[in-house]
């Protein structure tokens, strides 16, 4: 089930990526609609992070191409924001939360201009949006995991992009932070942005996203949540893995009940 859209925000065409000759992504071909909250779902090692790294040009492509807003990345870099995995950086680095948020403005500054009061204001506003304004001058190693993740998000917000690609923004954050973050992502979508999120948890995926990409090296499905989060497609994505299968059956059971009434409604 691969549904294509016209006028896509993001088009991935026949993409193949490999690490040391071992293919990680094989012939992925998909398009994403505007103003959507998109989840990339799949088992460990399915190539979820690889997909968004390939989209951001961080990895060499074996074949295929990626177009954003109908143009190659180089021409629209300022409209795209990337949030790496939290563990990918050294949090003992001598930087404050404000310093990190301010990095979001660097792309607009060009080669020589240095961040000034305007950039500081933008960064402060971004920190306020994620509720981290009181921690602006705190060194980043003194923040909790959830707070660090929010600082990363504020950096993306400071970029003021139209398309956001986030690598596991919910990894290692508590439920309160997760709720706050998803609320923020919904607001962003309602303001016309497209947010693509690598996500692990099948159960919350149902409530969080309006478009789902199911990935396991090959693209299993890409389409609206109701049509993609189905037992046959999930089974195809997760294969015969026992633990994952039991989760699928859990989901099956839930489907027999009206889950929308017990869980927070999707806006």
């Amino acid at each position, binding site marked *: 089930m691969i549904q294509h859209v016209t006028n896509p925000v993001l088009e991935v065409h026949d993409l193949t990526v490999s690490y040391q000759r071992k293919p990680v992504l094989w012939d992925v071909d998909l398009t994403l609609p505007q103003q959507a909250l998109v989840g990339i779902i799949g088992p460990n090692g399915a190539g979820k992070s690889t997909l968004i*790294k390939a989209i951001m040009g961080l990895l060499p492509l074996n074949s295929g191409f990626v177009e954003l807003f109908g143009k190659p990345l180089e021409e629209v*870099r300022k409209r795209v924001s*990337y949030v*790496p995995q939290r563990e990918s950086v050294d949090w003992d680095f001598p930087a404050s939360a404000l310093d990190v948020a301010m990095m979001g403005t660097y792309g607009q500054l060009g080669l020589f201009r240095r961040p000034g009061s305007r950039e500081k204001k933008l960064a402060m506003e971004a920190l306020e949006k994620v509720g981290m304004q009181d921690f602006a001058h705190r060194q980043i*190693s003194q923040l909790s995991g959830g707070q660090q993740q929010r600082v990363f998000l504020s950096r993306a917000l400071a970029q003021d992009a139209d398309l956001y690609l986030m690598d596991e923004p919910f990894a290692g954050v508590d439920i309160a932070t997760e709720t706050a973050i998803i609320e923020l992502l919904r607001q962003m979508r309602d303001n016309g942005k497209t947010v693509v999120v690598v996500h692990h948890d099948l159960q919350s995926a149902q409530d969080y996203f309006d478009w789902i990409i199911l990935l396991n090296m090959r693209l299993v499905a890409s389409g609206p949540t109701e049509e993609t989060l189905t037992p046959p497609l999930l089974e195809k994505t997760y294969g015969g893995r026992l633990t994952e299968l039991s989760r699928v059956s859990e989901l099956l059971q839930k489907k027999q009940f009206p889950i929308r009434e017990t869980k927070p409604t999707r806006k």
Partner: protein
Amino acid sequence: MNIDAFWIILTGALVAICCSLLGCFLILRRMAMVGDAISHAVLPGIVLAFLFSGSREVWTMLIGAALLGVACTFLIEFFHKKARVQADASIGVTFTTLFALGIILISVYAGKVDLDQDCVLYGEIAYVPLDIWLTESGMNLGPRTVWIIGGVLVVLLLFITIFYKQLYLTSFDPAFATAIGLSTTLWYYLLMGAVSLTTVAAFESVGAILVVALMVGPPATAYLLTDDLKKMLIISALAGTIASAAGFYLALWLNGSVAGAISAVIGLQFLLAFVFSPGHGLLAKRRQPVAVMKANA
């Protein structure tokens, strides 16, 4: 203070500022030993420059050394990225091989090359005032080394102030830097080029060991004292300057090696920071659990 002492301390301070500024970025990238690598790897460059030009003129040697320095950083990056060897292993294997190559070249051409390995490795900062730059009209402009290192410092200060944000971001989060269109490779080589230039300009006068000590010691001390990279750069430059002045007088008092005394002071500074630093120090850590418990209560 006599004029010779002034020149020695000034040279030491200039070298200290150059090395410690760059060292801050190196230790944050976990590449502190790159300075060590470059200062050893330049040996074959010096020998080859000598063999090809046949002269011991300073500029040919510096160019030969600088070329090998950059080649060394290229090889380190190449082995790290392509062969997927750890960065520190890659540094180790590259510079020992290049240094060995230099030693072999010297021993094979022993008759033709009049080079002293000790001189390359240990240098002697006390001889700085002997190599005076005289203009054609005979005007005394002071030691040549001071001019060379001074020039390097000006280049470095411009480089770091103008491109601070690029150096900062590519050191902290290379993936994000690439995503917004900064070339991490370009900034890596520019930084390594600067390290190579500094090492080559400095080791001739102060020796490789002191260069390494200055590139790692003061930045490590500053890292313990602050959580802000700008302050870290300033503190480490100050610490390096103080160490070179204090080291000179320590050496005078002991009648010993200046480079050795400076390195010892650097070690002492680090030890003091380790024990007394307000944020990361041993004493502060001992007090911290109590403070945290109070905050939670």
